[in-house]
């Protein structure tokens, strides 16, 4: 995945070729950060995963959110509706995610014990120390942008048209925003200048060891923790908790504190909580990704220091990745709606809450609501949260934070600088919606609404049309959950053509497109076909007739089974390829079956008799009875009582009369009842080649019979008796057989078996 990500990022932007690790080491600052982190993490060393786990994590964390639908959404949105992008740089959040703040005491049972208290510090002290330290805020913005971009690229390789389209849109929008919004210029500048750096940063982040470590450190928990339910931890509120960060964060756009240790403790805890709530590695990946983005924004705009992290809702963890992303789109709307009255400020935070608050209000049904939240419900929730939020948070903060969600969706399309990013995200959401609909040709009314809604939202009373957006969002969330694109074309049931893909392979049976061979060779080496047959190498039937005669002759004279089998298989193949299913085919299969039988090659025999069963339906043969009998015997050999029963169902009375079949049936009855006496009698008078088949399980049955006899007879049993009962035609073979099983005889009379002594030996063998 990492590789993929790398590819996805425009190569031209990759100005720093150095390996991420190398970069990391060059960062002296980082060393400090690590130490600081180490001190934090020491407290919970038990959570650390062994460094070995890092690699997968690192790789995973770059995975682009495969959210197709969202991209489209980010462009049509009316720019004015967006609050100005906060250009305030913040320390990059991602590293923070990765560190382990002390576990909030409130978190219920952490199955930490399962996890080996791996070298706690190694994650941080290791070679891959994280490079964030040096990054300046601009980089961060760029980082966002680039990440989004690359993600987009990754996720939608197949959709170039979209991409282009979106990029255009992005540019447009940026232009728009750039003018109207105070910081737009900044944003644009960032976008233009910082890309390379950002990318590099991003790559470094990708490599960050802590990410991996943390991700794997988090104990899995069965249930999602919803933020609000968590009792506050040590810190009463999230206001400026962390040392030294806020000032820089809130003021200068250039010199934000990037050090992880500067992050608010509450935030660290929040991160911890988020990861703790993850159940699976995938969840963690997703959480990580989301957190990375969210927190980054938080830190950048300073809201990280003002938010009450303890009360933040956790991101929705149960959802598949798509669900995260799905939600944002929906939330985007909400926030857009809410923004109306309030200006950019209030809802950033509110929005952010929404991001994660899908589950937050406590509801046990939260999870399901995310699946298809009833519009009114979730909207209501959003509203109330927004209120709460905006009350508590500072305006700017909240406004900033509201950005987080869209960011996710935007990212896919490739965000630019922050401001542009945000605006575009929202606008994109709208556009996507509209477009999706248009594409789908669905719900024209909705389209109208969406368009109107967009405008309204701008004006602030977009709440009227919330319904449709919700639906759309739900649709998208669902689509994402199932990793499906929203349908881009009107639904056409493919019922009638459903099997085509398969059909072309299977349905295109040999009969449908027969080829006629031209090969004149009598013999041919058997090669398993791996591609369409070439008529030049396929023998037509008249040649095959000669072939089989040749094979038969060869078999009679040489008894070279390897050769015969190969030749027969190649004949069979030629027949199959040409779709020949005639009496000749039957003859070939019968011939091969017999040869296989004679040599005891039951796999090959089974192939032939299975084919014969099908062939007989169209080509009645005089040997039907014979091979039916073989099949019955074969089922006895495989002890397949199910098939045996089925076979019995299809036995016609006429067929039962067949000497072979009736023999097989009586043999089966004797076998089923353990009547070995009769079984071996029947064996001795087996018709045709049945005895070859019975040979396959003769020993098995003999052993069982012998055990029964040895257990039954006391004190002795004449060998003579055993010989006749077990169907040995001569005494010597019987004696040899018994000797092989360790049967002992009475010393006084070697013709009598010592049953008691032998019984143990035979049972053991």
């Amino acid at each position, binding site marked *: 995945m990492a590789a993929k990500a790398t590819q996805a990022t425009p190569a031209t932007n990759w100005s720093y070729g150095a390996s991420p690790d190398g970069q990391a080491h060059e960062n002296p600052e980082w060393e400090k950060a690590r130490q600081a982190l180490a001190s934090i993490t020491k407290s919970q060393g038990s959570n650390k995963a062994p460094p070995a786990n890092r690699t997968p994590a690192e790789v995973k964390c770059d995975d682009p959110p495969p959210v197709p639908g969202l991209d489209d959404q980010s462009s049509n949105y009316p720019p004015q509706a967006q609050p100005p992008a906060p250009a305030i740089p913040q320390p990059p959040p991602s590293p923070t995610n990765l560190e382990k703040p002390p576990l909030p005491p409130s978190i219920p049972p952490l199955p930490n014990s399962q996890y080996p208290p791996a070298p706690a510090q190694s994650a941080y002290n290791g070679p891959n120390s994280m490079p964030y330290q040096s990054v300046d805020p601009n980089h961060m913005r760029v980082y966002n942008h680039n990440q989004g971009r690359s993600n987009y690229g990754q996720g939608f390789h197949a959709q170039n048209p979209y991409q282009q389209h979106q990029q255009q849109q992005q540019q447009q929008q940026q232009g728009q925003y750039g003018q109207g919004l105070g910081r737009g210029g900044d944003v644009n500048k960032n976008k233009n200048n910082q890309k390379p750096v950002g990318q590099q940063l991003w790559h470094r982040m990708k490599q960050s060891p802590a990410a991996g470590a943390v991700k794997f450190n988090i104990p899995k928990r069965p249930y999602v923790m919803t933020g609000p339910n968590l009792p506050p931890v040590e810190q009463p509120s999230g206001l400026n908790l962390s040392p030294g960060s806020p000032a820089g964060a809130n003021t200068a756009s250039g010199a934000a504190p990037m050090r992880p240790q500067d992050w608010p403790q509450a935030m660290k805890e929040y991160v911890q909580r988020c990861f703790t709530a993850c159940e699976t590695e995938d969840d963690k990946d997703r959480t990580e990704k989301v957190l990375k983005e969210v927190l980054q924004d938080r830190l950048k705009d300073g809201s990280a220091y003002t938010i009450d992290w303890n009360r933040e809702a956790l991101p929705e963890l149960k959802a598949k990745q798509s669900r995260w992303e799905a939600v944002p789109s929906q939330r985007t709307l909400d926030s857009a709606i809410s923004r109306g009255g309030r200006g950019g400020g209030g809802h950033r935070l509110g929005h952010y809450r929404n991001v994660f608050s899908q589950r937050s209000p406590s509801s046990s049904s939260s999870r399901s609501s995310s699946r*298809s939240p009833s519009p009114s419900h979730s909207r209501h929730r959003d509203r109330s949260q927004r209120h709460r939020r905006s009350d508590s948070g500072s305006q700017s903060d909240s406004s900033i934070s509201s950005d987080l969600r869209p960011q996710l969706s935007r990212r896919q399309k490739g965000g630019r600088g922050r401001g542009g990013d945000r605006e575009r995200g929202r606008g994109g959401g709208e556009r996507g919606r509209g477009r999706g609909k248009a594409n789908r040709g669905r719900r024209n009314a909705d389209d109208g609404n969406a368009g109107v809604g967009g405008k309204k939202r701008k004006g602030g009373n977009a709440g009227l049309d919330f319904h449709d957006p919700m639906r759309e969002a739900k649709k998208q969330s669902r*689509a994402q959950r199932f990793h499906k694109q929203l349908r881009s074309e009107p639904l056409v049931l493919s019922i009638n053509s459903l099997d085509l893909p398969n059909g072309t392979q299977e349905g295109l049976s040999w009969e449908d497109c027969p080829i006629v061979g031209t090969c004149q060779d009598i013999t041919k080496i058997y090669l398993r076909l791996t591609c369409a047959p070439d008529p030049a190498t396929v023998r037509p039937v008249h040649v095959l007739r000669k072939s089989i005669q040749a094979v038969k002759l060869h078999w009679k004279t040489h008894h070279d089974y390897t050769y015969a089998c190969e030749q027969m298989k190649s004949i069979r193949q030629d027949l199959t390829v040409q779709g020949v299913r005639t009496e000749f085919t039957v003859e070939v299969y019968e011939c091969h079956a017999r040869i296989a039988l004679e040599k005891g090659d039951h796999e090959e025999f089974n192939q032939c008799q299975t084919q014969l069963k099908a062939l007989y339906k169209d080509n009645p043969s005089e040997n039907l009875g014979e091979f039916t009998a073989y099949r019955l015997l074969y089922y006895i050999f495989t002890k397949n009582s199910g098939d045996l029963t089925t076979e019995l169902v299809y036995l016609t009375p006429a067929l039962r009369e067949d000497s072979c079949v009736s023999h097989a049936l009586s043999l089966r009855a004797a076998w089923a009842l353990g009547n070995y006496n009769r079984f071996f009698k029947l064996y001795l008078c087996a018709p045709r080649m049945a005895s070859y088949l019975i040979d396959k399980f003769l020993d098995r049955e003999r052993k069982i019979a012998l055990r029964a006899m040895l257990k039954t*007879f006391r004190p002795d049993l004449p060998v003579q008796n055993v010989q006749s009962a077990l169907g040995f035609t001569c005494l010597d073979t019987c004696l040899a057989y018994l000797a092989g099983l360790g049967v002992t005889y009475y010393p006084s009379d070697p013709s009598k078996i010592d049953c008691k002594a032998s019984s143990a030996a035979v049972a053991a063998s």
Partner: protein
Amino acid sequence: MAHITINQYLQQVYEALDNHEGSFCAELLSFKHPHVANPRLQLPNPEDKCQQVLEPPYDEMVAAHLRCTSAAANHDFIEAYKFQTLVAEQQLLKKGKGQPGDMLEKAAEQLMSCFRVCASDNRAGLDDSKKWGMLFLINQLFKIYFKINKLHLCKPLIRAIDSSTLKDEYSMAQRVTYKYYVGRKAMFDSDFKPAEECLSFSFQHCHRSSQKNKRMILIYLLPVKMLLGHMPTLQLLRKYDLMQFADVTKAVREGNLLLLTEALARHETFFIRCGIFLILEKLKIITYRNLFKTVYQLLRSHQLPLEAFLVCLRMMKVDGLDLDEVQCLLANLIYMGHIKGYISHQHQKLVVSKQNPFPPLSSVS
């Protein structure tokens, strides 16, 4: 419901999905529901309408369903809402109407892929984990596997359920079905004890109104029980219209080999179709045992001449019998533990234990 318009119908589906009314939604997609007969819903091309109201993948599902109604296909869609992939299955089954044989396997494939989805759903919470759908899918798969005689494919499914923590919490209906199939499989594998447990569970927990199902369970439970020495009462057989077993039961109980052979021959088709002929055939062994027990009781001796058995077997018209074969039959019974004793070849006598020479069937095997 019977005459709602397409729009009403779609609205209902939408609301059901929205409100998580799974069972109602399933009904709306079920072919057992009266709406199927509604001519207004039988559209050959329902795609557009569905698309307007529902989201993917549901629009496709419902559209497929509606087209199926018009094509008068038949499939039970209970819990379909959980498995969007069932669309494909539905489509398959619809096609499959024409050529059932192959299609069963394809349907099994589809179900299997659904099953994999469900089984690998580790993320969702317990409440709405897709794992709840596993048993349903497994039961459907069993149904197919039994039909196409691929019992070996059941094994991994059984293992999956055995290892599932939910196995005792699925709905009773599903569990009854599951146990029914597992019992049948165990029976075919000659694991009669587990088979008896499963089938008994199934029979006891099967809903009392499901007489047909109970009968189906009995068809397999009876042979197993009989093999383990529990004979059904005539009353039971009558209640469930299984009088085919009556003579079999009687013959086994009395050790009347002749009657058993007759009874089996008479209902051979029925037994074979049920797949229990071979199982019932094993009752012959029990019958031999009961017959020989009678001989023992008549002779009141612990040393029983083999001739006596030969005579009684001839009376039962067992053809082509000789002393060797009698020895063989006895050897088998002794080997299987039905008779405690030994044969003295020298004296041509069966010597049975003085205590409990014919242990009760339930204690054997």
